[in-house]
């Protein structure tokens, strides 16, 4: 699904923030991505959701060399990827329903087509009663569940989560982890970036450990 071969990344003319990355992500797998702050976790995720391109090396995503992708190809690739951020990135003027439905709406689908799916997913993540609430009135946990729901509503093959438990308490972090595990069990590949060792100890999954831009893999 994802292959990195000698991938390096630098911003502008600066030194490399990621160096000589070599790894593969298989379909249906679950990986933790960890490392100290500033190790390059977010940069690596940005490479994976095509917000950045490698400065060198070969990166294949869904069996396509990303160096050959044109701008017009990016939306189709991104629709196969769900992304969850620590800061949620919900649109404040849209309701929970509208935020979660955003991938469908931006794909030009009519509300009749996806209304049922969105309502079902809202129930599944425990936000059935907050369907018409704006993000401003949601708690941190509810916002994160809404963000996760938005990421998975279009059935992505790959789910990337960047510190999704960073803004929630440990109890809720465990609930969110179970949500990711359940999505993985249903077939989605998950890469969960975190530096919460307690959280990682709760699920036996390979760890991609970044340190000063280089990666070690602990199976």
């Amino acid at each position, binding site marked *: 699904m994802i292959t990195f071969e000698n991938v390096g990344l630098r911003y502008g003319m600066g030194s490399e923030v990621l160096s000589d990355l070599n790894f593969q992500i298989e379909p249906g797998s679950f990986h933790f991505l960890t490392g100290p702050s500033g190790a390059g976790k977010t940069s690596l995720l940005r490479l994976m*959701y095509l*917000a950045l391109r490698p400065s060198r090396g070969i990166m294949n995503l869904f069996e396509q060399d990303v160096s050959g992708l044109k*701008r*017009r190809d*990016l*939306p*189709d690739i*991104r*629709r196969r990827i769900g*992304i969850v951020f620590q800061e949620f*990135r919900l*649109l404040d*003027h*849209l*309701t929970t*329903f*509208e935020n979660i*439905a*955003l*991938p469908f*709406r*931006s*794909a*030009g689908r009519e*509300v*009749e087509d996806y*209304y*049922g*799916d969105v*309502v*079902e*997913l809202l*129930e*599944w993540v425990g936000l059935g009663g907050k*369907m*018409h609430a704006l993000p401003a009135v949601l708690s941190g946990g509810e916002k994160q569940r809404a963000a996760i729901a*938005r990421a*998975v*509503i*279009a*059935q992505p*093959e790959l789910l990337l989560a960047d510190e999704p438990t960073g803004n929630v308490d440990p109890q809720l972090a465990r609930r969110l982890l179970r949500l990711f595990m359940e*999505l993985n069990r*249903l*077939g*989605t590949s998950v890469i969960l970036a975190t530096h919460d060792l307690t959280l990682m100890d709760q699920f036996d999954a390979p760890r991609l450990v970044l340190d000063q831009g280089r990666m070690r893999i602990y199976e």
Partner: protein
Amino acid sequence: MNKPRKIAAKTTKVLSAPKRTDPGYAQAPIIPADSVVRRALVFVIAAMCLLACLALAIVLTAHRSTERWAAAISEEITVQLAPSDAITREEQMTRALEILRGTPGIDRANPADEVEIRELLEPWLGSDADLEALPVPAMIVIDIQRGSPPDMEALALRLSQAVPGAVLDDHRFWLERLRTGGRIVVWIGGGLFVLVLCVMVACVVFATRAAVSTNRDIVEVLHLVGARESFIAGEFQRHFLVMGLKAGMAGGAGAIVMLFVTEMAVRRWLHTGEGANARLLLGDLSFDFVAFAGVIGIVFLVAILSAVTSRLAVHRFLGEGL
């Protein structure tokens, strides 16, 4: 990979198709209108629309006057009979009329009576002038056939040879100058019209870029959920189309009111003695169906230009590597 169905199986709730009255059916715009449309921009576009409408009115008035002068060239000429020692005024008139009425291409040739001559001279000599004491030439007004006018040079030569003191005045020299002046006004008005639209387009480009910058977070989220640039551009375009239509209607309405008031005021003035000369130049100033259709056309043009400009600006902005 059929997760939603599997997820759905976990819930017992049976969902029917949504109705238009269901909450959540009508969705808020993805790009909030308040962050795109600023009052200042609406005002600027409305003002630009108003100026464009006024420029159009200038073009139409100048064009209509030019056409009228052109028609005057081809329809009416005069013969002046200056006093001559060799021949009496009556004989001058008889000979000239004989020649004119026998010339192919002339519909009618009639002597101008004293009232008509007095009206013509009134702007220069006043209404109390004693014309008997002045060497005022006699005048013959000639209507010519528009399709087959007479040979003016040959006619002038015949008149000057047969009638001492007779001068054929086909007004061509002055009317050609007026026509040229009219054309220049049309071109200036057209130039103003294009300039105003260019300024409006530039305003919309700046406003669109500002709007995309303001909404950068939303645009990034849209990118991340797989929205195509055409979709994102369409979201901005919709706002600018509505704004352009509203601003255009405001500007167009303002222009119609201004044209109506101007027409009323100018009509009154043209029918006074002071406005008589202007009336000769402009005719009865009126903004007819063409002018109002033009205003409506400009309103839609402004709306479409706003929408298309914003769409192109968003595409360009996104292409610069947001």
